């Protein structure tokens, strides 16, 4: 066994099924919140994604991922290109490795004008494809990105996001294959609600055999607030939700009933996605409600074996 490889990387390479969850670090400096979240998922998932200032400003992802690892849960550190240039991003990866973190998910992050610090300056020195290329270069041929070779860096298990619901489809697939060419070993999709569009996208993935080159994991998100989801859809902040699914959650009744309907919908989505040959697994993201994520895992009979 190569101890430089994360267990996620070993599972990816051996073709095993993946069960992931994602948490958002809290907007506080309290480590107990992160530790509690990590403990809730311990033994229930193969790895736990730690988002990087998504939608709000929060405890740093690297610090949170370190806390997660401290609870015996393997973290996936998310790194957005919005807030850091290549100097900070290389430094962050070296710091992650020093702290025992090898799984890095490279993404651009939502535009800062959509969050609470809308007056902030953005960076976007690199896009996610270029960041993947940079990180792979650090562990191999760093000269490919104009940097000097750094000794003893990596290997990293690199990942990214996949966007079945973004346009134009043909360029999204092209971008996805660039991520693979640049070193991505796993990709997590936007939350899936609309199976029809997902199916169109998946056909294209299969046609190009991309699922054989990268582990594609479907994002699952329980709808706990149908009204909020409906409000966010026209702003393109929420992936499309079919009207019948939205209606089902909305008409379920009070908050608790809506939550239960959202969980049931997520479980059904997982069941329907299980039929997609070559899909490598699921990532459950239930911000603020880890119990909902655990319930989905339990009801879908998804285990970590």
């Amino acid at each position, binding site marked *: 066994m190569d101890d430089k490889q994360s267990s996620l990387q070993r599972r990816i390479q051996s073709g095993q099924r993946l069960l992931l969850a994602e948490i958002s670090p809290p907007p506080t400096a309290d480590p107990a919140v992160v530790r509690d979240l990590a403990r809730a998922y311990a033994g229930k998932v193969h790895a736990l994604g730690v988002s990087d200032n998504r939608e709000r400003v929060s405890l740093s992802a690297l610090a949170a991922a370190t806390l997660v690892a401290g609870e015996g849960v393997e973290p996936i550190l998310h790194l957005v290109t*919005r807030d850091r240039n*290549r100097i900070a991003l290389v430094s962050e990866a070296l710091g992650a490795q020093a702290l025992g973190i090898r799984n890095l998910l490279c993404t*651009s992050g*939502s*535009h800062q*004008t*959509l969050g609470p610090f809308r007056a902030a300056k*953005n960076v*976007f*020195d*690199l*896009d*996610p*494809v*270029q960041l993947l*290329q*940079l990180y792979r270069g650090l562990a191999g041929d760093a000269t*490919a*990105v*104009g940097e000097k070779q750094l000794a003893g860096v990596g290997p990293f298990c690199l990942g990214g*996001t996949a*966007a079945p*619901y*973004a*346009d*134009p489809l*043909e*360029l*999204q697939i*092209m*971008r996805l294959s*660039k991520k693979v*060419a*640049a070193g991505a070993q796993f990709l997590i999709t*936007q939350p899936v609600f609309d199976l029809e569009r997902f199916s169109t996208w998946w056909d294209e993935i299969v046609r190009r055999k991309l699922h054989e080159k990268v582990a594609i994991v479907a994002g699952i998100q329980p709808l706990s607030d149908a009204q909020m989801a409906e409000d966010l859809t*026209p*702003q*393109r*902040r929420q992936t499309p939700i079919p009207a019948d699914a939205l209606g089902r959650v909305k008409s379920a009744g009070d908050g608790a009933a809506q939550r239960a309907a959202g969980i049931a919908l997520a479980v059904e989505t997982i069941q329907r996605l299980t039929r997609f040959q070559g899909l490598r697994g699921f990532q459950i993201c239930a911000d603020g409600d880890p119990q909902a994520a655990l319930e989905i895992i339990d009801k879908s009979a998804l285990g970590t074996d």
Partner: protein
Amino acid sequence: MIVADRKNVREIRAMIQNHQRVLLVGCGTCVTVCLAGGEREVGILGSALRMALRLAGRDQVIVDQVTIERQCEDAFIDALAPRVGEYDAICSLACGAGVQALAERFPNTPVYPGVNTQFIGILESQGVWTEKCAACGNCRLGQFVGICPITRCAKRQFNGPCGGSRDGRCEVSPELDCAWQLIYDRAKALNKLDELEAVVPPLDWSTGLDGGPRKVVREDQCIAGLGPNA
């Protein structure tokens, strides 16, 4: 052209509040074309300021106006020089380059900006201007079928659209076109989609503002024997 937008009268009045004789200077080039700081706009601003000052009981403040052909070239500022001594402040309605050119030329006179310089862009339709160029110093439009992802993609993505592109619109605002949708449509029409397939490596931003303020020197255009410091 350089596109600017007018500042409001209140802001300009606050900037000049400690002055008694103010010269508003318009520019006959870009800001005239984009209707922000040419002769017409300087005239309107002059009237508005005089009216505002009168209402504030400050009729004694003198506000005059003049427009020169181009504020960003010293030779054109010559026409202004004899008058400047009569004023204790200048408000320039040129772009930021013009404001600074006047400040350099008249070291003893405070110079205030009368417009907000926005971008290098074009007249999209009557009364609408849009940004097209970020002046990055290393034009790659040839790689992107003539549509600039540095300027027109809110997240400066070089390898395709982000996950926020939907129905041709950008995640930042439904008012904004997704630059990559535009690149896609044009590349498809030109039968050049395959040219977008190669990974675009990280850029060298040092040719742009990130490398520090820039200077273009054309030795062949410099005065013979004197070089760039003539």
